[in-house]
């Protein structure tokens, strides 16, 4: 939880002036009145708490396999059943949540920061800066990410990066490769803003670049950024499963929601062992919904044009 609001707070604090921060305080006051958004927030906090502290109370040791109880349906002993190696699904689900949540949010923050700053700078300065940034973005957009990931995997193996850290490096790289689309979107939005009357006014007033960019332009795309970021958390949680799928993400036996769900993607498991895929599925599903609803609420209160 702290990292979400923390992340957002960081982006805006660069822009914060005394007047603004009181606006933010107002916004939060209004947010508190939005019941749906608060419910979303509560759920996110709940999910974090359960995932980070829940496993401490589990009687089943970390990833302990138990051949005697393979593939058992949910019972009082194992609330969500056991998997094909007799591991407790609930315990794994919670441990998986730690990684999936961290990865989802971290990679979202990185790509949104890179993408929006570059897009904004390109749109504001136009000319040569715009050309350079957008051509690099064009170039990156034409390159498929699959070979990059494969090469990365090989390089990380060559450099003997410990298996535990690999995930984060790959995530960093992924967000690095993923910024162009976002940058283009931000740029196009900014171009419209740039032509709005109040920006013309800002120019006439002779405000300096930093102030125009950070006080007047970026805040206007914040609602859009929030929509995109909340959407991309869910995407990142799912894309982690793609990485794991190629052996580039988290290595087993460490669970993630993505690889837990992926472990049951055939017709037989689908029919016969629903407890293998329903829990991670529901976890991803509810978390993403909660984040999105909360993001929606945030957007509504942050948007200066919106008055209820």
């Amino acid at each position, binding site marked *: 939880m702290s990292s979400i609001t923390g992340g957002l707070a960081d982006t805006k604090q660069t822009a914060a002036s005394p007047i603004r921060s009181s606006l933010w305080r107002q916004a939060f006051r209004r947010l508190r009145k939005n019941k749906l958004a608060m419910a979303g927030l509560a759920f996110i906090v709940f999910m974090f708490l359960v995932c980070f502290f829940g496993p401490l109370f589990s009687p089943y040791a970390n990833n302990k396999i138990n051949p005697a109880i393979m593939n058992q349906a949910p019972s009082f002993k194992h609330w969500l059943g056991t998997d094909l190696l007799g591991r407790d699904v609930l315990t794994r689900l919670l441990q998986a949540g730690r990684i999936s949540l961290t990865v989802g949010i971290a990679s979202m923050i990185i790509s949104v920061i890179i993408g929006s700053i570059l897009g904004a700078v390109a749109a504001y300065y136009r000319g040569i800066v715009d050309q350079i940034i957008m051509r690099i973005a064009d170039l990156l957009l034409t390159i498929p990410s699959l070979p990059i990931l494969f090469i990365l995997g090989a390089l990380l193996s060559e450099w003997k990066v410990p298996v535990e850290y690999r995930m984060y490096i790959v995530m960093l790289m992924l967000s690095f490769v993923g910024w162009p689309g976002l940058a283009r979107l931000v740029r196009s939005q900014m171009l419209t803003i740039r032509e709005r009357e109040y920006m013309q006014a800002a120019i006439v007033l002779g405000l300096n670049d930093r102030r125009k960019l950070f006080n007047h332009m970026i805040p206007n795309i914040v609602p859009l950024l929030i929509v995109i970021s909340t959407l991309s958390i869910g995407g990142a949680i799912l894309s982690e499963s793609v990485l794991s799928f190629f*052996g580039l993400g988290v290595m087993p036996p460490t669970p993630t929601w993505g690889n837990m769900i992926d472990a049951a993607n055939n*017709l037989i498991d689908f029919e016969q062992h629903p407890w293998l895929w329903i829990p991670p599925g529901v976890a991803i599903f509810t978390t993403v919904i909660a984040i999105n609803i909360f993001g929606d609420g945030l957007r509504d209160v942050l948007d200066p044009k919106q008055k209820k």
Partner: protein
Amino acid sequence: MKKLLITLLSITMASSILLAACSNDSSTPASNSTQTSAADTKGTENSSTTTATTELTAPIAASDLSKLPAQAQKRTDTIIVGLTDPSGAFTPYFQQSGYDGNVSSVLYASLVTVDDKGLPIPDLAEKWDISSDGLTYTFHLRKELKFSDGTPLTAEDVAFTWTLIHDKSYDGQSELLTTIAIKGGKAYKEGKAKSIEGIKIIDPQTIAVTIEKPNAKGLTILGSEILSKAYYGKDYTFGSLDYIKKLHATPVGTGPYKLEKFIPGQEVRFVANEFYYKGKPKTEHFIYKTTEGDTWQFIETGEQDYGSFQATQENIDKLKGLGFLNIIPYTANNYGYLQFNLEHPTLKDKKVRQALTYGLDRKTIYVDANQGAGQIANIPASPIAWSYTEEGINPYNYDPEKAKQLLDEAGWKEGADGIREKDGQKLKIHFIGSKSKATDIFIAVAKENYTAIGVQLEAEQFADFNAQIAKFESGDFDLVSFSTPILGDPSDGVISFVNGEVKGYDNPKVKELYEKGLATSDIEARKAVYKELYQIINDDAPYIFTSYRKLVVAYNGRIEGLSISPLRGLSASLPDWKLK
């Protein structure tokens, strides 16, 4: 031998099956041994139960044919089998994919084929003679053989086929080049001779060929598919084989069926070949349907008549429950293994290798987590091979105490953190494997097993088979997971110990026995040789042998005359299939 070619090629495909295996391997649409071998390296069925599995050993007949879906009911002269991914290169010797091999095995017959045990039996060649020095093979062709276009097949075509493979621009993987050497083949390849010295046409029905060194596999390798000289040789000039690519889509063969239509990514349609030497097959149409991944839905809806599944209890129960399927269980003729890197000083010590074998709970990994669809392996041969033996073989039953004792003896003592040490070095094992469910299971269990005996396992997975091989070839690993292709001859299962593939393993006795095993074609003599060889390898433990895969074939109960050859898959009995 066609099957040998196919199995060789199947390694190529092992990687391309990655996705299919990753996502849903419960039913690799293996219609043929090729795919099952390919899938083997990649994935295993994910589900398992704890209920004691009653092992399926005998075939089960369909219990209620009335349950047959309408779609399958409607077909009267067509049989449909799933095949993962035929690409359209249907000329034998020129294929890069094992699946194309499955297609050409229907389109082309060979001079010599093998029976269920892997022993040679006549096909296009009626009989053959091998000279007493084992170097000259004389093949006697059947009379009035015809290609599917009606033209006659003679010794000229056989000579042409062998010659073509020796062209310098040939980029296939025929064992004619890699395993045996025809006398004068090299000179032809280098352009120094106009023809190959060792090939002699005696009369239109008889051809002789001399090879450089005796080889028990010579007969089946030489006795492979025959290409029509009139068709494939029309435009041939030495050094350029590009023209053949244009002929891949319009094959002229000698097999039970001929190609009717190839729809890329969807179907390969065959129609019975009236010129087939055994007579026209009993079913007019045969179709290989391209099914990537899961075949359950196609079997259940009757879109497909035949599927191969892992012999897990759940799969078997479900297949039985459908009622309209005949089920045949069989064991794949290959084996899985974990190869040690014997170039690393730690693993040069036999005791350490044995300890790591004792210390690995293979039953949990390969049998229990697999719901019984596997059997623990201890030698480089499958239980269905004629050379298989358990005599004098150490089963290395899971025994952590024994493993600890061996490690103690080898001088590895437990350190402060529970990890064993020797000369200040920790006992760490760096495992590499490609991403698959089977590898996931292995890592989860092996990590626990090895920690218990004071060994630290560092597991690394690679995005695909190709990447894993690249890492393997760089030598930066301690333990690597593989499985062999389908083994046609017992020598195929042990060649890696003598040809330098297992780097750092050098046992002169093994080399001697390997040569001895190939120098004779007498089965009983060879059995004795391989028994000794297996005992040595079992004790030396350059590999941890892992498992033999168990499979079931399930097919539409209306099909009669179907049998499964572990070496040749369905193509052996295909001409006899009939819909009742």
